[in-house]
């Protein structure tokens, strides 16, 4: 078991990675910039591991390959030195290995792939630093705003201020995020910089008096509207989107922004 756990885990993870990449779902877990690297390494690793397994199986099949001290080396390979004298530890190690393999198999190959739920999203603070938002994104000022995502708008709002967005028409989708204002709700998405672990909500403020009465936090919406000065006169959020339409939608297949 000890000798085979690595190849087994590697093959499980390689198959899972390649399948996710083939079905376009790898980006639920990692930033798309890593897709090519992940696929190339998965293929290389898979080939190397399969090659290693063939060599190991052939050596095991050969009747006389263990002679003299080699027999001892094989034992050490299998369970490690000293463990032969400690059967209870050996047993618990084996149980642990079986648990790891079963867990990996279940998580990687049985459960359907999934994005982070909004419950986790809600527990993380809104990203507000302009530098973090604009890092790696194309020139936004003067760009074609009809294709702008929640993240593009948020970073334009942060870096350019009110004047950069005022009067512009917005058409985005995202989930509703409560930022502690009764009249302003955020339409947000999770932004991933490396993998889902670092996901951080980015959002734009929407003017919707008493929004909590008609809308549920975390529900997905499609928003059409225009950036205007905040009608409530709140100094904290000077400019907001006043919605022309706010329609409920199902969670999209690709819920993150990058």
């Amino acid at each position, binding site marked *: 078991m000890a*000798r085979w756990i*690595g190849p087994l*885990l*590697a*093959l*499980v*993870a390689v198959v*899972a*990675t390649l*399948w996710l990449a083939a079905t376009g779902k790898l980006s*639920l*877990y*990692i930033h798309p910039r890593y897709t090519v690297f*992940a696929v190339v*390494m998965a293929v290389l*690793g898979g080939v*190397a*591991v*399969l*090659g*290693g*397994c*063939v*060599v*190991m*199986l*052939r050596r095991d*099949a050969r009747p006389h390959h263990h002679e003299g*001290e080699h027999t001892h*080396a094989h034992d*050490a*390979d299998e369970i*490690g030195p000293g463990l032969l004298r400690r059967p209870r530890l050996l047993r618990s190690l084996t149980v642990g*290995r079986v648990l*790891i393999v079963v*867990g990996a198999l279940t*998580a990687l*190959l*049985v*459960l*359907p792939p*999934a*994005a*982070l*739920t909004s*419950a*986790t999203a809600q527990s*993380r*603070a809104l*990203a507000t*630093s302009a530098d*973090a938002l604009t*890092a790696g994104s194309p020139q936004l000022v003067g760009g074609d705003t009809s294709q702008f995502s929640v993240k593009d708008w948020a970073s334009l709002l942060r870096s350019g201020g009110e004047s950069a967005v005022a009067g512009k028409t917005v058409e985005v989708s995202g989930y509703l995020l409560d930022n502690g204002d009764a009249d302003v709700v955020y339409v947000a998405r999770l*932004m991933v*910089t490396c*993998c*889902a*672990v*670092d996901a*951080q909500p980015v959002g734009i403020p929407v003017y919707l008096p008493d929004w909590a009465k008609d809308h549920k936090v975390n529900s997905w919406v499609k928003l059409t509207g225009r950036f205007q000065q905040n009608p409530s006169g709140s100094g904290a959020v000077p400019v907001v989107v006043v919605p022309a339409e706010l329609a409920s939608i199902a969670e999209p297949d690709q819920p993150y922004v990058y």
Partner: protein
Amino acid sequence: MVLTREPAIAPARRRSRWRPVLVLGAVLLVLVGLRIATSGGTVSLTNAVQDFVTLSLSVVIESLPFVILGVLISTVVQLWVPDRWFFAILPRNGVLRRGVLSLLGVLLPVCECGNVPLARGLVVRGLSVPEAMTFLLAAPILNPITIVTTVQAFGWGDGIVVWRILGGFLIANFVGWLLTRHPHPDAMLTPDFQAACAAHAHDADDRTHRLSRGARMVTAEMSAVLPALFVGSALAGLIQVAISREVLVGLGGDPVLSVLALMALAFVVAMCSNVDAFFVLSLGSTFSPGAIVAFLVFGPMIDVKMLALMRTTFTARTLLIVTGVVALFVAALGLGLNLAR
């Protein structure tokens, strides 16, 4: 006579030659079949369980390519790089030697998870424990990708980049020096790994084909590292779900608490050093510069996933000491920067 016997043996041998390939093909088919058969289903887990799985998997899927790369480079270094070539570039003097090793990350900008198999390979090749530890601690910080992303995130202005590089280098080398004080450095390695090193020395006169030895080394290394990676990732995922990040991020401005809070955050998020600068920037709170430096120096050296991976090689006691010393020095660095402002 020989001629008449030959055909009788050949088919049997051919069969046994190809049986492994058939077995592996069957295993692969089962794995792929399992994935395809279950892909249509929907499972409704509670949010916390679902997110635990998603977060753990994202750490595994993110780290796996780097681990594979590290294992492959480690194998190449062990089998194909000649001794004289390898040790010729390293100075003999201990301090200089560790200094050079801590810059090895410039040549091999692998993420920290990939460095563990590489460091194991280097120890097998004859590197001492303190030298390997210096490399492990320094390489994730002192590599071009990390430095470029840190500059992108913070610029040169407020000294964060400089202190990250300098702090990483000094702390890694100090810990390395400290470990040389140990009377029996090899005792800091796990018994299993010591045995593996001994087996390699014995293997050196193995006449079998280098490629097949390399393939066996890859699988052996996977068996050592991957279980640790999976356990470490699961722990990271579990902590993420169990502990509200708000608690740590909320301490942003305090000159003392913010340093400790961000070190704790670095420990639990277990993030690649290549991108952690953007992560801390996106947290949205206004952290003290000392806290940011502490996050950026501590995270690449020590986190929950790294400890699980390093445990394949070093004893728990060694890791405890290293973690304690690194934490103390990083905290001192962060607090010092905050006080000096």
